């Protein structure tokens, strides 16, 4: 009689056998669809580096950063190599400097920015975020010193990024801070007039800023975080676009529900990559793993565009009617797929629409298919805000403040994060071209509706109260 031991019968076959389809699709994503880990960001707590003595503080900070981050770049490269998936950027986010250095003066803050810059350079990262302040309920002395230092700090350093939170759903909108930021942005632009206002590309004004964004320029290590953390930003607009194109070539009649499902599944895969690589980097560095931020963040490379996704979905261009609905679909599907894929999703997680950093969006702006008004509408359904928007250099500070105020209102009322990264390009007007270089890309300057008119409304200042539905206790 034959005795088949059922357990042994399958011993020769590995239940975890990879299928040809799984292998090929993974390699395809990597080679042709720009699947990559967009950033591994090391968050470093600087609170205990504080000192009255500037030299001591900068020393503490320099050693803290170079100590913790010394192996960041090589470890990321090593693990990227292991999986054949490049970690494109390695970055650092520090505790909000306005709090760390609350006792410093403005010029001392600028010196500190230079320390951050050289520490970042020493460990080989391209951006260091955290030159930040949280002023949604009021501007403290350290906050003021930092904000006043921003134009010089950002124009005399390469790598430092600044973010200011001026509003929250709980606190309301600090219009005084917004007025200050309007002026600060103008000054920062003027300080870098020969680079089309480049300093403004490293400065973001937020409402409801998340404490763990790995992407620049909004990255900082939130109050409440521990000593160090690894956060990962994954991206893959090209992967999503190709997945949509492939599905539609097989079945051109897919409806929006089916496309949403497809995007969700693709987002799942992209996030899994980030989770895997992030955890291994964290383990190798012996630092806690924080979150995966799954954001479709484009770059000015061909095939790495969010704007193109709209065309794949069936719109003539980003900006035409239907864009807001499409973005709502995209953003939500990305969040759902990402949420399932990771133990901890955080940061912004959704779709970015940075005008200059996306070849397709930049071109759409040049052609006039999308302007400031539609961009603003889109920020109500996507994960960031008015990002890398180049506007006429002559735009007055109070108009800038008004644009920011609109963005903040959308965020505060809808309990979401919104932000503004506006670049008034000195000496240039609507229709002109601005060039920022590298990942920051280039853009056509978009007009601002009646932008030159005085704005008595914002000039009133004060504080727009938090919405009633924020009383959640």
């Amino acid at each position, binding site marked *: 009689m034959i005795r088949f031991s059922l357990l042994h*019968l399958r011993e020769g076959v590995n239940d975890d056998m990879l299928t040809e389809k799984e292998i090929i699709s993974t*390699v395809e994503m990597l080679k042709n669809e720009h699947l990559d880990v967009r950033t591994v960001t090391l968050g470093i707590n600087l609170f205990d580096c504080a000192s009255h003595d500037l030299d001591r503080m900068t020393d503490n900070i320099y050693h803290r950063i170079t100590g913790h981050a010394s192996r960041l770049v090589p470890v990321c490269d090593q693990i990227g190599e292991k999986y054949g998936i490049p970690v494109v950027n390695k970055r650092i986010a520090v505790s909000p400097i306005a709090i760390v250095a609350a006792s410093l003066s403005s010029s001392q803050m600028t010196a500190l920015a230079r320390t951050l810059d050289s520490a970042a350079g020493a460990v080989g990262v391209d951006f260091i975020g955290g030159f930040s302040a949280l002023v949604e309920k009021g501007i403290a002395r350290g906050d003021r010193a930092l904000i006043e230092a921003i134009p010089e700090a950002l124009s005399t350093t390469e790598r430092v990024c600044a973010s200011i939170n001026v509003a929250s759903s709980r606190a309301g909108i600090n219009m005084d801070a917004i007025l200050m930021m309007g002026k600060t942005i103008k000054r920062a632009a003027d300080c870098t007039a020969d680079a089309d206002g480049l300093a403004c590309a490293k400065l973001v004004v937020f409402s409801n800023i998340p404490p763990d964004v790995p992407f620049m320029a909004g990255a900082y290590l939130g109050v409440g975080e521990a000593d160090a953390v690894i956060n990962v930003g994954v991206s893959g607009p090209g992967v999503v676009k190709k997945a949509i194109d492939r599905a539609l070539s097989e079945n051109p009649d897919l409806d929006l529900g089916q496309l949403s499902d497809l995007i969700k599944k693709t987002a799942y895969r992209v996030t899994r990559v980030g989770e*895997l690589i992030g955890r291994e980097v964290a383990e190798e560095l012996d630092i806690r793993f924080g979150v995966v931020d799954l954001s479709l963040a484009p770059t000015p490379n061909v095939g790495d565009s969010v704007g193109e996704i709209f065309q794949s979905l069936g719109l003539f261009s980003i900006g035409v009617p239907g864009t807001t609905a499409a973005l709502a679909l995209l953003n939500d599907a990305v969040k759902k797929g990402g949420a399932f894929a990771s133990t901890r999703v955080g940061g912004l997680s959704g779709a970015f629409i940075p005008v200059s950093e996306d070849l397709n969006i930049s071109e759409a702006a040049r052609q006039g298919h999308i302007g400031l008004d539609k961009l603003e509408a889109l920020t109500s359904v996507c994960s960031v805000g008015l990002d890398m928007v180049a506007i006429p250099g002559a735009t007055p500070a109070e108009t800038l403040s008004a644009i920011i105020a609109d963005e903040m209102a959308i965020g505060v009322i809808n309990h979401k994060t919104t932000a503004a990264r506006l670049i008034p390009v000195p000496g240039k007007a609507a229709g002109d071209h601005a060039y920022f270089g590298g990942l920051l890309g280039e853009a056509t300057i978009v007009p601002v509706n009646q932008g030159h008119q005085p704005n008595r409304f914002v000039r009133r200042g004060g504080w727009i109260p938090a919405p009633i539905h924020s009383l959640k206790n």
Partner: protein
Amino acid sequence: MSRVILSVLGQDRPGILAAVSGVLYRKNGNIENVSQTTLQTQFAGIFIASVPETVSLAELTAALEKALGPLGMNVHVDPLDLSAEAVPPVKSEPFVITTKGPDRRGLVAEITAIIARYNVNITNLQAIFKGGENPGDNIMIYEVDIPADTSRQSLHRELRDKAAALALDISIQHRNIFMTLHRI
């Protein structure tokens, strides 16, 4: 009971497994393990079986040939030598090497030569020849175990250089990424 290893090769058709298991049943034997695969139209199967000591290798072989011959199958029988100590498993990491490019002589030979030189074992090999309209799309997938003490950088470099010389696109990735992406 003595253990044997049977290999069966030939054109795939119904009845092969029935023939093998039927012979073993009649000889009071037992199939302990089996692995079978089909490649295009050809069947290949390996069986580990145990038979009573009283059944000689020659007797078993004759019986199998009698049952499988009419089916057009070739069979080979060997004693399974368990006295040979299994090589203690070397600590290694599983990787997947994929090459894509035009088919040509030496493609597999040259890549596998490098792999062997680094003492890397190939645990699975798949060839996907799309050929036809797109000759550039021939894909070879080598699943390998790379010993932990191997210089991976050096191996990767040699493989990349060889791939470039053969006009191939090559990817070398740790297996985890495939499992992570496609399995929950």
